[in-house]
Structures are given as C-alpha cells and as structure tokens.
C-alpha cells in the first residue's frame, strides 16, 4: 500500500477504531479515560488551529474550558435549562472570552502574546475561585446533570464516550474544512509572514479574531462536556498547569496538522492514567508515573523541539514524502 492511499484511508481507519472502542473495552474506568482523551482532544483541535496553523500562542486555554464548564453547570443546575441549551451557552460564553483575548493578539507577538494569554488564564482561574455565588468557589460545583439531547440521556460510560468523540469528530470536520480552504491558508500565511499576508490582501485582524473565537469555542464546549461527564468541577481543573498541558499536546503534535495534535492529546492524557491502562501495574509505580507527569510533558516538549521541530505531524510528513520520492 503506498503512502497516498494510506493517507487517504487513515482518517477512516481512525474513525472506525474510535467508534468500536466501547464495544471492545468493558472496563468502565478505562472507557472514562478514553472519554477524557476525547475531551482533551477537542481542546487541542481548537488550539491546533490557533497555534499550529495561525501561529498565535495561548497559555490560557484552560480558562476557556473553565468558562464553558461553569456556564453549562450554572445554566443546567441553577437555571434549570435543558443540557443542550447550556452546552450552546457554554460555547457562546467561551467564544466571547476568545473575542476578548483576541484584542491583545492584534498588537502583541511571540513572548508578549504568551504573557498576555498567561495573565488572562491566571485571572480567570482566580475568578473561578472568587465568583463563589456562581462557581461554588474552591469547593467547586457539584450535582451537574448528565448530558441529554431531548429525551436521550447520556448516562452510560459508552454513551458518554460516543457523545464526546462525536463532538470531536464534528470539530475535526469543521477544523479540516477551515484549514483545507481559504481561511486555513490565510492562517498559515499569517504565521509565515504578516507582511506577506497583508500584501496578499489577507485581513489579518479578521483572521486572528476569528481563529481565537473558534479556538475558544471548542475549548468551551469541551469544558461543558467535561462537566456533564464527571458531574463535578472545581477551579483546580482550569489552572495554568492545564493550559500548559494543552499547549504541550499541541506542540508535540506538530504545526499545520490536526491528526498530530489529536494523537498527542490522546497519548499525553493516557500518561495521567497509566494505572487504568496497564492492568496489574503496581499502585506505587502508577503513582510515581503520575507524580512525574509534568516532567514527562516537559521532556516530550524538549525532545520534540530539538529532534522534530514540526512535531509528530512533521515526522509523518517527512516519512511519507520520502516514500513518495522513492
């Protein structure tokens, strides 16, 4: 099988594999781990658009996830809205957050943008603690209902898995449409040279703002899904550490790619749950791995930046280009 057919078939194989997981995996906790992989993948798809394609860094993406999670929790529990409406509201609120964060991106680049987004993330994580009447403060928000769409309620581990990965599938489709057509080229152009992009008539303000909004929207929806899947959220979930984890997944996954970051999101999420993944792994070993989790992420970034600056996606592209040449 040559590289081209493999590449054309890869998405289909990935979808088929993702769909049959709940049929093959009976362990409910393991299934939940794979569901978390999907939630992180959803955040990372949005971040791949922003960072991997448009070259705009965000060290505050957990804040958007938090905005979505709290919005959905508040709308369903306090306001009694149907879950789907709360889900939409979560997307809207997070997108508005993205619109606000887009403003500094119009003036700042590189490290300065990184600092601005980091500041935004810190500010929001404080807000989640301080806004106690809405968020429940440090104790968090509990009793969030399971997701439901009309009469269909997603209670079982496998139905939650399908819901989350279904959302990932739609996000990937939308992101693929964006990246493969005109906006995606505008994003990559902006990344390559803002002067060159302007000379081509690219509306760089418009592209940056739209990309921030779409990216924040995806993180917000992921947050709402998390709240529904777990039923409990707290400020400790949406911290700087989480934001850095997301950007780590995106960097390891590689630039100008969706598949690479998704793969990295899944792989790096699994590191957190090594005990569920490897049956019979002694508790202490699992705990050791978990306590080194951040070091593992750090190491992954360092290795990628040194040996494969274009990430997993870059390695794959180089290999398939080599195959086509031979």
């Amino acid at each position: 099988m040559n590289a081209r057919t493999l590449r054309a078939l890869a998405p289909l194989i990935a979808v088929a594999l993702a769909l049959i997981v709940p049929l093959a995996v009976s362990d409910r906790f393991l299934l939940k781990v794979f569901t978390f992989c999907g939630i992180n993948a959803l955040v990372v798809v949005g971040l791949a658009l922003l960072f991997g394609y448009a070259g705009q860094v965000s060290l505050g993406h957990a804040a958007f996830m938090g905005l979505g999670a709290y919005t959905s929790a508040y709308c369903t529990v306090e306001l009694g809205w149907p879950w789907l409406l709360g889900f939409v509201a979560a997307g809207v609120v997070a997108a508005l957050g993205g619109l606000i964060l887009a403003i500094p991106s119009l003036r700042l680049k590189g490290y300065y943008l990184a600092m601005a987004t980091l500041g935004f993330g810190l500010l929001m994580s404080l807000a989640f603690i301080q806004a106690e009447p809405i968020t429940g403060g440090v104790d968090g928000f509990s009793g969030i209902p399971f997701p439901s769409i009309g009469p269909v309620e997603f209670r079982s581990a496998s139905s939650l898995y399908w819901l989350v990965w279904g959302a990932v599938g739609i996000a990937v489709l939308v992101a693929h449409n964006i990246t493969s057509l005109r906006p995606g080229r505008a994003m990559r152009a902006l990344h390559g040279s803002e002067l060159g992009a302007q000379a081509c008539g690219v509306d760089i303000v418009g592209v940056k703002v739209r990309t921030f909004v779409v990216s924040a929207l995806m993180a917000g929806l992921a947050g709402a899904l998390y709240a529904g899947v777990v039923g409990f959220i707290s400020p400790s979930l949406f911290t700087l550490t989480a934001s850095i984890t997301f950007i780590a997944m995106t960097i390891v996954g590689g630039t100008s790619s969706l598949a690479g970051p998704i793969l990295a999101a899944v792989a790096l999420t699994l590191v957190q749950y090594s005990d569920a993944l490897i049956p019979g792994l002694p508790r202490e070993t699992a705990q050791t791995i978990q306590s080194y989790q951040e070091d593992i992420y750090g190491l992954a970034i360092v290795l990628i930046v040194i040996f494969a600056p274009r990430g997993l996606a870059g390695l794959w592209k180089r290999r398939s280009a080599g195959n086509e040449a031979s």
Partner: protein
Amino acid sequence: MTLLQVRNVTRRFGGLTAVDDVSFDVYEGTVKALIGPNGAGKSTLFNALTGFDRPDEGSVVFEGEELVGRKPREVVRVGLARTFQNTQLFEEMTAGENVMVGSQARQRRGFTTAMLRLPNAVAEDREAREDASRLLRLIGIEEWIDVPAADLPAGIRRLVEIARALATRPRLLLLDEPAAGLNATETRELVQTLFRVRDSGITVVIVEHDMGLVMEVSDEIVVLDRGAKIAEGPPRMIQKDPAVIAAYLGGEVDDDV
C-alpha cells in the same frame, strides 16, 4: 493614460527625511524604474504607495482614488500588488500554496462558508489552485510548485513572490529589487517575465540596482537621491544626466567621465 499619480510625498524618520517631496506619474502599460543609491528612499516610497507606511505629506492617487491612509489589504484590492526587498514568502507553505494566498485579494468567501464546505468556497479554492499553476507556468517555474518555500533557491523565491503578487490580479505591479540574488540566467528569465507581464496589460514599477536590467526594461526612470527626485526621463537621457552621474559617483560632476 495616467494610472498612478504621486504628488509631493514626504516621509520623515525623526530628523531624517527619507522621502522628500517626490512627485511623478506612472502611465498605463509602461514600465517605470525607480533608482538611486542605497538609502535613497526607494523602499520607503514603496511602503508609502502600498499602505504599509503612511507618508507625512503628499498624496497617492490611483485611477482617481486616494490611497494614502488605506490599509495594505485595501490597496491590493484596488489593484496595486507588490513584492519585498527581503522576500516575504510563507516558508512552510509550498510555492503553489504561496501563490494561492495571492488569490485571496479578490476572493470573498470567509470562515463560515469554508467551515460548512459550501460549494462556492470549494469552487473558489479550485480556481485559486488553477490560477497558481497557470501563473507558475507563465513564469516558467511550475516544476517547483510542490516545494516548500523554505527549500527554494534564492532566484526562484523572487519569482514565486512575483507570481503571488500576480495572483492578486493587479493593474499595477511594484517590484522591490526583483533581480537581487539572481544569477545571469535567472536575470534573463526575469526580463522575459517582465515583458510578458507588461504585454498582458499590467503596468510595472520596479526598484532595481542592476542597471543593465533597468535600461533594458524601463520606459521611464525616476532617480532618487537622499529622498529627493533628482531626475526623470527615458533611459537614454538618464544615462547622460549629470546630476545622476554625480549622485552615483558620490561627488561633483567631472566632465571627463
């Protein structure tokens, strides 16, 4: 017919007057060269014409429309495309993709139509793709279409940037030192390309240090020195102009030269 009117354009950087009260016209269908020693203000003037910089004084009128104060993206939509002295390619994108971005200047479909993959977004994409391969063929570099810009030789990079500018479908093409970094063969090809561009009805303004090329392609030349226009006219007159010779030699005119 006058396509572009430059009137009394002045640009100061602190105490330095980089462009000093420069005026000239560009006629449709001609090639106009802008020459002058290093630091004469040629690139600064280019930036003022294309919206990348705002002149302190003066006006730039293209077909009756004032361009001063417009954004680069608006200027390119009006019909002025440019290249840069330091090529501004999108390094991770292929030559073909670089040229496709140029098509965005005249495309209208945005984020939403692309997200939903509506037929007109797809049609626009196909059009841009066809345009890119046609332009690379026109310039004679179609074999580089799938090569990332970062891997292109210097000469090809300049030509890709010209193709990208042409993809915006300009009426006026402004080239800032297109022959810099080109070898003799590539320069010959560039000259042919310039003639082809002109013959297709596109007016050209070129900044260039290669005098052989300038004399061959241009209908008229404007000479800048320390920001000011010191001469204007057809190549043969400029070659003999004492002020021009003085500027290039950096001293007084010597009758023996």
